[in-house]
């Protein structure tokens, strides 16, 4: 992919959370990180709890801002996007969260949750078409389209995660950010969703940022990996290399601790 | 200490909100305060004079500043009804009410804490169901109604307790330095008066406390039940600690803290609710004074009561919070 423009480029992005009003006691979530994601890549971000992984995900999807540095999306600095372009950006980048119980509106049927994506970003579709598309998407992620009029609480965790993925895919994003999509699922379901990801990566031309603290999953799924610790990127490179011959001392310790 | 400072700052802020509310009541909602202050039968000239004296020709913000200044100097205005400085009226009426609330609070705590703890421990049991029904019933009883009924039956029909007043006839001469008869009588070593005061307090305090006790039990139960679900209870059981030990050594201290914060607030609310019982039991007090003032359209006196009750409320909360903070070992966490 050399030469091609990266899809996402974070350059020295930093972010801190103010802890308390007045008191100058800032905890740094991120301190000046650089991340590049090329089209078609599956990039893993590894790190322990609190290392700043979710913050990166939120910055990439523009759910949160950053204090300094630059974020280039398809070469454009996102800070310069107009309102309209910002809205369009949202159909290019989608996110799947960890907690399948919180990531769907409990008061909307799963079908309408999926259709909402279409309603907002595929305005050209009529209602019947939207319903058809939603059914199609549900089938694609391994759910029965006839279940569309059910509410999230009628589904298991794994099924909800499938709905969340269908909802994200509905707008046909170029980049899918997955923030620990497996970690709150049962072991046997984790494997199912993992297989779903593998299939999607194969079938769709998706670029994926896969955030996880599970070294083994990242090893299996990702091309490239960033290892984070305390808001910094401590190591990066091809997944195979980094995870078998870690250069960084922290990475080594992490790998060693993993069962 | 930062926590204490923060609480004090918050209380001071609250005081200003309180001042703002009372200012609103007396200067905006009630209409022209000069007319109100002048009282009936005042001529136009007097009203005009008052208007100037009270600074009512100035902008509202200046008026508010003047108002705050006056009140912070302890000047609550003059009652056109009793013609006395309201501050001295209120100071006279406060002790009997506080005494009443104090006893009602004791009843409340004495019932709520153990009952809350026990129902939390035996949540879901028949006993718990029964208490919960009692709590919901208690929370539905009109204070003034139960006061009338109690007075008629316990004092009237059974003659078990005195009907009305603060002291029995034989002790009518009694007076003390603080106005808190319970305290004054003890200080004077007069057990007779002490018991008499107490007897006169039982019915009104009980009537007053019912509603609050119902809420108190519920809150204590909720707080305690949360504690019982925590793993440290499991760990204590696993250590082999006995149930009483778990309840009193472990759960109680942790669950009582949030409950006590609410009891602090209840103190103020109870003081407000004295309006419903004092008149029925013919007791002097801030509640009766307030009702009187309302019916006399003595708006300044009413507003003063609102203010004073608010201040007592703030103080009670501040004291409870600081006490909890000082007693609590987990200083970092609370700060």
């Amino acid at each position: 992919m050399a030469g091609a423009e990266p899809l996402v480029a974070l350059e020295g992005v930093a972010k801190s959370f103010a802890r308390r009003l007045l008191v100058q006691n800032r905890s740094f979530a991120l301190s000046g990180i650089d991340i590049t994601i090329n089209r078609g890549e599956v990039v893993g971000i590894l790190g322990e709890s609190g290392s700043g992984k979710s913050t990166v995900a939120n910055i990439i999807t523009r759910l949160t801002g950053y204090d300094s540095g630059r974020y280039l999306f398809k070469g454009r600095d996102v800070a310069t996007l107009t309102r309209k372009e910002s809205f369009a950006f949202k159909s290019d980048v989608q996110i799947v969260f960890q907690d399948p119980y919180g990531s769907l509106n409990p008061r909307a049927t799963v079908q309408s949750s999926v259709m909402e994506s279409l309603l907002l970003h595929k305005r050209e579709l009529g209602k019947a078409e939207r319903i058809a598309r939603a059914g199609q998407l549900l089938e694609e992620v391994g759910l029965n389209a006839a279940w569309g009029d059910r509410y999230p609480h009628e589904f298991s965790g794994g099924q909800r995660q499938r709905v969340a993925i269908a909802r994200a895919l509905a707008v046909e994003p170029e980049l899918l950010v997955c923030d620990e999509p497996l970690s709150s699922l049962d072991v046997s379901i984790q494997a199912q969703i993992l297989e779903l990801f593998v299939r999607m990566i194969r079938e769709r031309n998706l670029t994926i940022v896969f955030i996880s603290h599970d070294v083994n999953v990242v090893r299996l799924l990702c091309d490239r990996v960033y290892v984070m610790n305390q808001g910094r990127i401590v190591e990066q490179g091809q997944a195979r290399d980094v995870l078998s011959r870690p250069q960084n001392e922290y990475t080594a310790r992490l790998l060693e601790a993993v069962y | 200490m930062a926590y204490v400072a923060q609480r004090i700052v918050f209380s001071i802020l609250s005081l200003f909100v309180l001042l703002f509310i009372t200012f609103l009541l007396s200067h905006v909602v009630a209409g022209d305060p000069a007319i109100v202050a002048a009282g009936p039968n005042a001529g136009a000239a007097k009203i005009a004079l008052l208007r100037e004296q009270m600074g009512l020709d100035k902008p509202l913000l200046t008026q508010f500043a003047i108002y705050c200044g006056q009140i912070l100097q302890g000047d609550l205005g003059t009652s056109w009804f009793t013609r006395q400085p309201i501050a001295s009226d209120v100071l006279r009426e406060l002790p009997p009410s506080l005494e009443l609330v104090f006893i009602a609070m004791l009843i409340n705590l004495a019932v709520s804490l153990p009952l809350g703890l026990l129902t939390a421990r035996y949540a879901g049991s028949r006993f718990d169901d029964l208490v919960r029904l009692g709590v919901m019933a208690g929370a539905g009883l009109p204070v003034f109604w139960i006061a009338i009924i109690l007075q008629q039956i316990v004092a009237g029909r059974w003659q078990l307790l005195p009907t009305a007043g603060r002291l029995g006839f034989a002790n009518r001469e009694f007076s003390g330095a603080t106005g808190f008869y319970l305290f004054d009588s003890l200080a004077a070593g007069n057990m007779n008066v002490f018991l008499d005061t107490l007897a006169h307090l039982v019915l009104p305090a009980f009537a007053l406390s019912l509603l609050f006790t119902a809420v108190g039990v519920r809150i204590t139960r909720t707080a305690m039940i949360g504690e019982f679900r925590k793993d440290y209870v499991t760990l204590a059981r696993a250590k082999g600690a006995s149930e009483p030990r778990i309840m009193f050594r472990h759960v109680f201290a942790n669950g009582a803290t949030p409950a006590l914060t609410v009891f602090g607030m209840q103190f103020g609310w109870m003081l407000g609710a004295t309006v419903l019982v004092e008149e029925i039991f013919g007791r002097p007090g801030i509640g009766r004074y307030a009702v009187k003032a309302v019916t006399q359209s003595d708006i300044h006196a009413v507003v003063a009561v609102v203010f004073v009750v608010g201040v007592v409320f703030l103080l009670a909360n501040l004291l409870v919070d600081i006490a909890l903070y000082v007693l609590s070992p987990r200083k970092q966490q609370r700060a």
Partner: protein
Amino acid sequence: APTGTLVIAENETPENLDPANATNSTVDELLLGAYDPLVQFSAGATEVTPRLAKSWEISPDGLTYTFKLRDDVLFHDGSKLTAEDVKFTLDRLKAAAANVLNDMGPYASAEVVDPTTVKLHLSAPFGPFLSALSRIYVVNKALVEPHMGDDHARQWLSVNEAGSGPYMITAYNPTESVTLKAFDKYWGGWDGNHVAEVVFRYITEPSTQLSLLKSGEVHIAPDITVEDKIALKTEPGFVVDVGAAATPLFFDFNTASKGPTGNKKFREMLSKTFDRQLHLDQVLMGFGALPDGPLPANWMGHEAGTEQAFDLEAAKKMVEENGWKGTTLTVRYLPAILEEKAAVEQLQSNLAEIGITLNAEGMTWPAQAATLQKVETTADINMIYSFPVFPDPHAILNATFNGALTGAKGGYNWAQYSNPDVDALLNEAASSSDSAKRAELYKKAQKLIGEDYVVITVSNPGSVVALSDKVEGYKYNVAHHQTFNYMDIGLKP
């Protein structure tokens, strides 16, 4: 020597102790024993008798009254009462524009002749002047003067007592109780059976008053319900005293109103809508006299038949003829007084039947008084008792109907009624001392008032008081309605 303690229940708390407020019975009953007036109406008397004044002379033109004072009167602080104190008292009341002076007519000034002689000057002759003086309580100048300030010592006298009467106010807790103790150096001496101490306990609830009376904690309970009083009549240990009161209760129509009550015809209709007989029978349970016009029927100068009889049919016809259906009126009254409430409910109920809505606003006396300061804030109908300060037609008619004493002018003419012919008749009657002539003038005035449909005289209630049978010497005093002659009362052992 006086012994024992008399406890009296009272439903309304006193505003203050200021003699300037002596028109208010709750205040008056405390001052009655604590202060001395120049002359007094004793319980049962129809004429004034000497008190501080040993004797008096009236100048032939009726403009100067000269009083000879007793020289053995001591104030409670031990100092001697002199003519200076009398002058000071009246000067202060005048300067403070006190309500008690409303009934003093054209009183002008006081003059000290010598320590035991004081002259009072009037700007015009005024028949009931002596009677009116019975409410002027003489204060101790030496004590009060330092507190005059710019409020004429109102604040100080509100909580302090400076009198010379048989009893001293020793404890004043206005929401709870007031205690008076016998003054052992009282000039009148303490012969006979008297109590050493009087306690007023302020108990709002009639039912509580009843309980306390029954348990012996109070000796006199005036405010329990009529039904309870009737029940007590037959109960051993209690006495129910019925005094022939002269305190007519009025519905005052706002005659100056721009609303419906400004219309005489409308008022005519209204004045037919109240059944006095029913009120007397069922609310007062027969305690009282059926009113026939504003003056009690046995009073000098009473004119019969000036007011409309109850005739709801006729009223209904008038409403229909004039298209008054759907009118909404407001009445203000004192909810603490059960009779007032019952009367309002009765009127509401009757008016509802003929298609008129009557909203009621319960208020207290001073609050209601405050609304009378302007015609615009005056309700369509106000309820008011006339408590005549002395038993003379003037005390009722002048206070209630004189255009100079409208509510807007600070008086008790709450109908805001102003008829120059009536005013002239009342003034003429006041300045005369010829009884027959006065009676004639008052009759004329009543006719005119009746033709203007100013008020409905609701009732002439008796004063019904429940007492423990230990109480000896209680007597109803028409001139001091709703008070108690505790200085004459003794307790049976």
